């Protein structure tokens, strides 16, 4: 099983695409994000350096986009979503400009760098902005597919990527479709796990364990968090009667909240939100941080059993 970080898979694919697609430009703010640091050496005219100045980065990207350019920009998710939050809102989303924000170093997987660099609120923030689309791949294969699909996307787009290598879940025939949930595994209809991002692998491992214990789970990859595939959520609620969400992000306002908003309004069923428990990230082995927040495989298995018992 191949392992590669989603950020590196995305960045390398975009570099490859740049050879044949000459229509996009890249804005950088002196961060090592996703391997795109070499873009400027290969395509000096198409790369714009803004220095360590994220507000200026977003403003400049908006100006470039307003002139008809397809603009990608890359920085850490924390800085894109918070340091430059207002610029994203008022000068990318409000004028509905064609800017793709690549936000890297998502979630607790950042590990050693700790709370200042771990983006755990970015989905909540980006999701609240009108006109914004929010997506997150779950492995290197889907990250590459997303890079290809993003070329034809128009409008404000936030792409959330993780720092460290993760095992591949998908095969190379995977096609990324915006706004479409993907049922990855269907053991049965006892409950549904709706997952976004790299924790998909943990969900699949947990579902396999639960299957051996007589609980049969549907596992859905919700790569597009906004606009949410509401039909897939409602199907999960109706057909399986219990929904668990799993995300490497705070449980306040992210995927779990998005799914819950649909479930409570359309077909209320018991839910459990797996994610960061309203606390900051910290330094350390990501697996230990996941365990502390009840996001490791054992915790997911235990929470799933409690959820099914509430049906």
């Amino acid at each position, binding site marked *: 099983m191949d392992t590669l970080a989603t950020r590196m898979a995305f960045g390398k694919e975009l570099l490859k695409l740049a050879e044949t697609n000459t229509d996009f*430009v890249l804005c950088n703010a002196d961060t090592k994000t996703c391997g795109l640091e070499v873009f400027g050496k290969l395509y000096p*005219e*198409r790369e*714009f*350096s*803004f*220095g360590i*100045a994220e*507000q*200026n980065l*977003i*403003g*400049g*990207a*908006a*100006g*470039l*986009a*307003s*002139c*008809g*350019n397809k603009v990608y920009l890359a920085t850490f998710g924390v800085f894109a979503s918070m340091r430059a939050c*207002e*610029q994203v809102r*008022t*000068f990318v989303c*409000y*004028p*509905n400009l064609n800017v793709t924000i690549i936000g890297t170093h998502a979630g607790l997987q950042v590990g050693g760098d700790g709370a200042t660099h771990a983006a755990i609120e970015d989905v909540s923030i980006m999701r609240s902005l009108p006109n914004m689309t929010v997506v997150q791949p779950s492995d290197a294969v889907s990250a590459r597919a997303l890079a290809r699909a993003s070329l034809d996307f128009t409008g404000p787009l936030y792409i959330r990527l993780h720092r460290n290598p993760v095992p591949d879940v998908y095969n190379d025939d995977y096609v990324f479709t915006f706004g479409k949930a993907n049922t990855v595994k269907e053991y049965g209809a006892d409950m549904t796990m709706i997952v976004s991002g790299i924790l998909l692998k943990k969900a699949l491992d947990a579902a396999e364990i639960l299957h051996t214990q007589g609980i049969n789970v549907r596992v859905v990859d919700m790569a597009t968090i906004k606009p949410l595939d509401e039909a897939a959520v409602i199907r999960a609620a109706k057909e399986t009667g219990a929904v668990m969400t799993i995300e490497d992000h705070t449980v306040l306002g992210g995927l779990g909240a998005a799914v819950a908003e649909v479930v409570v309004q359309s077909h209320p069923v018991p839910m459990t939100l797996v994610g960061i428990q309203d606390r900051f990230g910290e330094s350390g082995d990501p697996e230990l941080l996941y365990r502390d927040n009840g996001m490791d495989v054992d915790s997911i298995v235990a929470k799933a059993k409690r959820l099914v018992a509430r049906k």
Partner: protein
Amino acid sequence: MSQYSFTQKDVVRLEAQAQQIREDIIAMIHAAKAGHPGGSLSAVEMVTALYFHVLNIDPQNPDWPDRDRFILSKGHACPVLYACLARRGFFPPDILNTLRQYKSILQGHPDMTKVPGLDMSAGSLGNGLSIGVGMAMSAKLHKQDYMTYVMLGDGEIQEGMVWEAAMSAAHHDLKNLTAIVDCNGVQIGGWTNDVMCIEPLADKWRAFGWAVVETNGHNMADVLTALHTAKTMRKPTAILMRTVKGKGVSFMEDDPKWHGAAPTDEELVAAICQIKEGGIM
């Protein structure tokens, strides 16, 4: 560069146009019962000079890719911009009295998705120069020779992002970018240099790698000359224009109260009278 040269006849024509723009500003803010007259009136000569003489634009084709760009970073002064766009033919002038009303294209702060000829939304201070940097970069990338003008308030440059943008414009050698600072000396809370001193202003821009042109912002010939000089500079250029907040209406001049207040019916009559009689001092 023909649009940068001018005759005395042009000056007279533009001064008359500026008078009409002042009347429009007062009338639309009176009709809206809210708005920002002070910073609109201080910018009248410059925005009039741009829209009625200097900018290479086409009201019949507002999205023309090779057009010159103008960003009103001090977006609260949008009445001056709305009036110029309307009088220049981008939309009918009778729309001006819908300022700030429900379903109007003329939002309290400008929305580029609603107003023909508006190059960028604005309202949150400190952002426009960065966007101008992006527009100027795009011109260089695609070898277009349009200019990008960004008008900022003097209070606005207290925002740190302005200086991020200034640094990047010099770094990227954006000769095709001109910042215009409307130095009317007043912000909502009082005199700018009491709220947060911005001087020495010219030295600050020069230190960031910009050329500086200083001018009287209420003398039309001086304004046109400053725009011409800025165009010839081999650096991004800041035009620091000394202005009077509320210029043209005696009781609004130099008074922070008129940063954001609408005239009463009586004040409207008095103001229009003064503008019609006084022209520009």
